[in-house]
């Protein structure tokens, strides 16, 4: 029987019940009774059928208990009760289905973003085929408004992509030749040709969905406990009802016990919260591996961060250009032209900066000589360019004035690498490069502290100077520099031994061992790399720290919600039992309370679907919540 048929039967029996009430007030008892019996049969048959089907498979079901109760009620002539119980049972199931759908909405929204078809070029012809049938190596075309149907590499065209399906981030990202694109993302403007690498169920998008589905069905300890309770509760109540019957011969009381034997709200109370919470996370680019991860993240009191790529952007950037008596732009253009010949990451950073500033058609450098670890010399447009370290300047006999030296030292103290730039034997300026702290890092750390994290620690393999600076900028409690990956593992272990509940956040690749050691491992900016998705308990898909803060708040809200539901459900069970024993609750009212309690826990969980981390409560800008600057451990 399908959901639609059930809805119909519910509607018909509802109508019959209304009719029975009408007959009740017009005083036609005969008509009332027969209407109720008809209603009971219409609603009862599908329930009995299901009970039978289960019985045939040697499976026990709640339907069986309800069927026995209803038959019993008919037998003793309690038509009102029998009609009400069957109606409430079906109506309750209907409402539960509708409301449960809402708790699962986030994931469904995500699944709906799955690409259906793809335009591929085969045998020189464009063809539209189902997305599942694209094969690795196919050339796929995506036009404005289209969905990328595969994971692959751009091989033509440029476009702005909305990657919300993967990262939860709706600000479009620019993509051009060589960039990786993910299935499920949408071309907002432009045109792309993509060579398919992963298709169908292997795409990051498909794996996210599978991961979330599995996570939503993983069981937390609370849930396991509740299920154990339910496993004892149901047979216990059934036996109790038999005992009650043997001793009191009170059929009505016995049947009432059968009706309340299904611990619906109890079994569903914890999972609905987890489902809604995990779903909310998935939609915002936060993947929880399971209910356990949610509970663990809610409990942590210490957060350990890796520096490079986690607290900082992990990509060096040009932070300042000091031109001595010339034009900074002109100097950058000149140096960038020379550096096009360099493979060094600092050189590339300078070239990238020039491109970002719209400098196109950089001149081709000639007579390039690369001095490893120090820089390079080259001819650009007939002028001799030297860019690199102090030592390189000295070796080439270029004078560094005390003023220039002071400027360079100041830049270095601020955490930069200063590159000296000379043209035609004259020192013309400094280009400073640094790996900047993420702009959202400070807010994210503040939010973590507000959510009850007591200590925030940074571990890094980087040098002390750079580490201390980041620690100071972000107001971290402890900074430990020059560590090897195994040192990080040892450090996390020690924290755990001290009784801390530790979360470790890193990029998921270098930090995989430490992430695996912590109570809860968080991989940042994964964008779907396999290692991080496997090692970490929580994966932040976008390269943004504020997702961490959201994850923590969401985890706490989910656990809170779960606790409310559990207490409510347990309370209801005892209330029902007491009510039945005191003779206040009978078949219909028992079923009503039962169904209501189920609905209430579901409705409570639905609140989590819309949870946004209490963003409205954010402190006004400019408030410094840290108090005195914490000491930086050197």
């Amino acid at each position, binding site marked *: 029987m399908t959901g639609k048929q059930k809805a119909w039967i519910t509607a018909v029996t509802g109508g019959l019940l209304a009719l029975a009430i009408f007959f009740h007030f017009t005083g036609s008892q005969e008509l009332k009774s027969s209407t109720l019996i008809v209603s009971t049969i219409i609603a009862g048959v599908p329930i009995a059928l*299901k009970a039978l089907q289960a019985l045939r498979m040697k499976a026990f079901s709640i339907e069986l208990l309800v069927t026995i109760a209803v038959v019993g009620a008919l037998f003793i002539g309690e038509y009102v009760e029998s009609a009400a119980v069957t109606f409430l049972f079906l109506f309750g199931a209907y409402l539960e289905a509708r409301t449960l759908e809402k708790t699962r909405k986030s994931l469904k929204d995500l699944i709906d973003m799955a690409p259906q078809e793809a335009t591929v070029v085969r045998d020189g012809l464009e063809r539209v085929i189902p997305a599942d049938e694209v094969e690795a190596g196919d050339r796929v075309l995506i036009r404005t408004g289209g969905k990328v149907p595969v994971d692959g590499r751009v091989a033509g065209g440029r476009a702005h992509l909305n990657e919300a399906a993967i990262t939860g981030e709706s600000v479009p990202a620019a993509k051009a030749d060589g960039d990786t694109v993910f299935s499920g993302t949408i071309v907002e403007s432009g045109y792309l040709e993509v060579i398919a690498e992963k298709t169908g169920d292997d795409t990051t998008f498909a794996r996210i969905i599978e991961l979330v589905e599995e996570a939503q069905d993983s069981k937390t300890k609370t849930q396991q406990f509740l299920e154990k309770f339910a496993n004892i509760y149901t047979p216990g109540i059934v036996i109790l009802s038999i005992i009650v019957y043997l001793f009191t011969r009170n059929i009505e009381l016995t049947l009432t016990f059968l009706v309340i034997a299904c611990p619906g709200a109890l079994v569903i109370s914890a999972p609905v919260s987890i489902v809604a919470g995990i779903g909310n996370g998935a939609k915002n680019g936060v993947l929880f591996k399971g209910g356990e991860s949610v509970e663990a993240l809610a409990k942590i009191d210490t957060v350990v961060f890796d520096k490079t790529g986690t607290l900082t952007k992990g990509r060096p950037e040009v932070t300042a250009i000091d031109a001595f008596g010339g034009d900074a732009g002109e100097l950058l253009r000149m140096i960038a032209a020379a550096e096009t010949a360099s493979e060094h990451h600092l050189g590339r950073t300078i070239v990238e900066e020039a491109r970002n500033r719209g400098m196109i058609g950089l001149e081709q450098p000639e007579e390039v000589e690369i001095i490893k670890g120090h820089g390079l010399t080259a001819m650009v447009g007939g002028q001799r360019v030297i860019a690199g370290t102090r030592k390189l300047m000295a070796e080439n006999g270029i004078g560094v004035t005390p003023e220039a030296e002071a400027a360079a030292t100041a830049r270095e103290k601020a955490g930069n690498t200063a590159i000296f730039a000379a043209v035609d034997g004259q020192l013309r300026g400094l280009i400073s490069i640094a790996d900047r702290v993420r702009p959202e890092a400070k807010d994210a750390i503040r939010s973590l502290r507000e959510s009850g994290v007591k200590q925030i620690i940074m571990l890094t393999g980087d040098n002390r100077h750079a580490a201390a600076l980041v620690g100071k900028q972000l107001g971290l409690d402890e900074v430990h520099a020059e560590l090897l990956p195994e040192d990080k593992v040892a450090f996390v272990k020690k924290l755990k031994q001290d009784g801390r509940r530790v979360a470790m956040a890193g990029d998921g690749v270098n930090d995989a061992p430490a992430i695996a050691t912590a109570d809860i491992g968080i991989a940042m900016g994964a964008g779907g790399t396999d290692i991080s998705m496997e090692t970490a308990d929580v994966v932040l898909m976008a390269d943004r720290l504020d997702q961490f803060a959201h994850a923590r708040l969401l985890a706490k809200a989910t656990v809170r919600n779960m606790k409310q539901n559990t207490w409510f459900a347990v309370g209801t069970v005892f209330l029902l039992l007491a009510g039945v024993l005191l003779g206040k609750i009978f078949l219909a009212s028992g079923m009503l309370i039962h169904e209501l309690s189920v609905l209430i826990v579901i409705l409570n969980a639905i609140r989590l679907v819309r949870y946004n981390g209490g963003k409205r409560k954010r402190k006004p800008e400019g408030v410094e919540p840290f108090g005195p600057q914490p000491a930086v451990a050197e």
Partner: protein
Amino acid sequence: MKQVVLQMEALTCPSCIKKIEGALGKMDGVEQAKVLFNSGKVKARFDDGKVSAEEIEGTVKKLGYPVLSKKVS
């Protein structure tokens, strides 16, 4: 060893999980049966020499749960 994934209508009562998992688990050739309650899916790993995906689908249907789609891999 093959895997079949059945997409069902939304499941509402958690007791369905035990019912379906129990019934499939008793089938000869079914290695592991798992009901994903929240996504309304049934996943079963089975030995295709002993039992077919259609038979698994049939058991679920006989239990009273309509199967919307089936994917064997």
